[in-house]
């Protein structure tokens, strides 16, 4: 195993999350980067981990990352394809040991908002920016055993209190999840493109655990809307391995998920460019046979 010398932050993020997936995990996985982390884990150190997609696909073996939680590859060579209510029920019943979700706005206690940004004078009914809604994120965060959140550390996205709590972290602090009646343990990590946050065991507050190379504590503090605490012994990230990066590139043939588009923006709507690229990627890689 050799570490890659050059890698992008998306690759670092996906590698970190991938390493959190254990061989005995049953993982409920959300759209985007989480999907890459999941398939890479299964193709490397965690071949027995079972990935579950919301659409009902269980344990798929696919040649590329699904472009949504219910795209055809979510059931390609799967061990089961069951209804959506069934996979959510399996999670609620306690079979899912790890969930991985994305977010748009997050707060001190790891609560996520993917519903609406109200803006000045706005409200839930009349927001400044309407977002997608929960989808399955609320369900994953409510009932999965452990939880990892992957999101962009943008200005104004890490706030003291989310305006709309779509998906529960630790709600208002210690004991709040239990009081609300939630079954899962709550978030373990928040993985961003600058650093990784974890949660204090006692206060349930998010703190800075690990910085990526070249990022400063000050820089992160300025992007966070509360008095951010910092781990006493800050850890260094483990770089992605060459194998992980090779797999990420192969599983994301058009680069649309790892944000390294292999098609020029003016060809983004060009069907032939899309078709030729993916066809060639499929023909040249044999990952599919190796896991």
């Amino acid at each position, binding site marked *: 195993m050799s570490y890659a010398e050059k890698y992008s932050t998306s690759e670092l993020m996906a590698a970190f999350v991938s390493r959190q997936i254990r061989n005995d995990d049953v993982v409920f996985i959300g759209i985007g980067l989480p999907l890459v982390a999941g398939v890479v884990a299964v193709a490397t150190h965690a071949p027995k981990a079972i990935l579950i997609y919301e*659409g009902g696909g269980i344990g798929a073996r696919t040649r590329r990352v699904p472009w*949504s939680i219910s795209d055809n590859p979510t059931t390609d060579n799967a061990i089961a394809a069951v209804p959506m209510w069934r996979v959510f*029920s399996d999670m609620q019943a306690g079979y899912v040991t790890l969930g991985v979700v994305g977010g748009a706005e997050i707060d001190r206690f790891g609560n996520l908002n993917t519903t609406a940004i109200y803006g000045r004078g706005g409200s839930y009914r009349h927001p400044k920016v309407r977002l*997608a*809604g929960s989808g399955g994120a609320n369900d994953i965060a409510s009932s999965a055993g452990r939880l990892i959140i992957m999101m962009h550390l943008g200005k104004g996205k890490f706030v003291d209190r989310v305006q709309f709590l*779509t998906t529960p972290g630790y709600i208002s602090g210690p004991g709040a999840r239990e009081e609300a009646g*939630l079954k899962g343990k709550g978030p373990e990590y928040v993985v961003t493109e600058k650093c990784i946050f974890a949660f204090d065991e006692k206060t349930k507050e998010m703190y800075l655990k690990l910085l990526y190379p070249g990022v400063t504590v000050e820089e992160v503090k300025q992007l966070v809307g509360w008095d951010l605490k910092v781990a006493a012994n800050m850890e260094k990230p483990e770089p992605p391995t060459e194998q992980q990066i090779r797999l990420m590139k192969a599983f994301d043939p058009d680069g649309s998920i790892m944000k390294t588009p292999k098609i020029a923006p003016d060809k983004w709507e060009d*069907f032939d460019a899309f078709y030729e690229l993916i066809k060639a990627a499929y023909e040249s890689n044999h990952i599919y046979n190796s896991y």
Partner: protein
Amino acid sequence: MQVQESKVLTLEEAVCRYVYDGCSIALGAIVSREPMAVASEIVRQKKKDLTFVNDSSVDPAELLIAAGCIRRVEDAYIWMGGVGPAHNYRRAVQEGIPHYLEIEEYSNYGISLRFMAGAMGVPFLPTKSMLGSDMVAHNPRIKVIPDPYGGKPVALVPASRPDVAFIHAQRADAEGNAQIWGMVGNDDNIARAAKAVVITCEEIVPTSEIRKIPNMTAIPSYCVSAVVKVPFCCHPLSVSGYYWLDQPFRRSFSKASKTREGVVAWIDEWVYDLKNHEEYMNKVGMDRLSKLRQMELDNYHIPTIETTG
């Protein structure tokens, strides 16, 4: 002797007969098997004031909202998943263009259980999802109560019984016994919960084919009002064993949707100016559609059932 009318209709007939202004409607599946051609036909027939009941929806919800067909949504997620934001949903909610929407929100599991309650004929079901969230605060139809058998809180969601559901299957027989491969979504329950069900399918097969592999029948004929053969019904979305997601096409729609003028022109070009789904397929081009099919077949085949003797 009573003469039974055939359930097999055209798409135009099915939409005309079962979708009416002000009705509640569910479209089955998410991304894979989401019936885009049905949404287009609803737009073409200018149906309005619909209540759209759905777990998650991508392109069809965007199109129906942009065309002004939907008045109210009861859902968990509307977005152009895998492509970009839901520009049309945003314009409707944020600016009232073409008009404001009433929204009643749940999680995907919450909606799943609403359909399941409808399918079971019970008024509600409990869940451990959505507790502690603001969905409960803003949606009075989610009721949080203590477990009546002594215990922690549970959230109750009301049964959903849409007036009509359209569900796309890989294949069905003329009676509507529908077999689904790949992602199933909530379609088994949506079909049982809805008051009328139209099955669209890639192929209509003899009942003897259905009988060879009865475990694949997600929806039995007694739930079904009508059957329509619609090849490539879901384009630009996908169908397992039949065709891939056409991401470039979805990106074009998403790009056009950035402005109101853009999406209005797109709807003219791709819906109103075309008489039906056959004209749509011709405009997309059979070469492109067959490549999408080939890409899927290179990955996944629906297993063929061999019979002996």
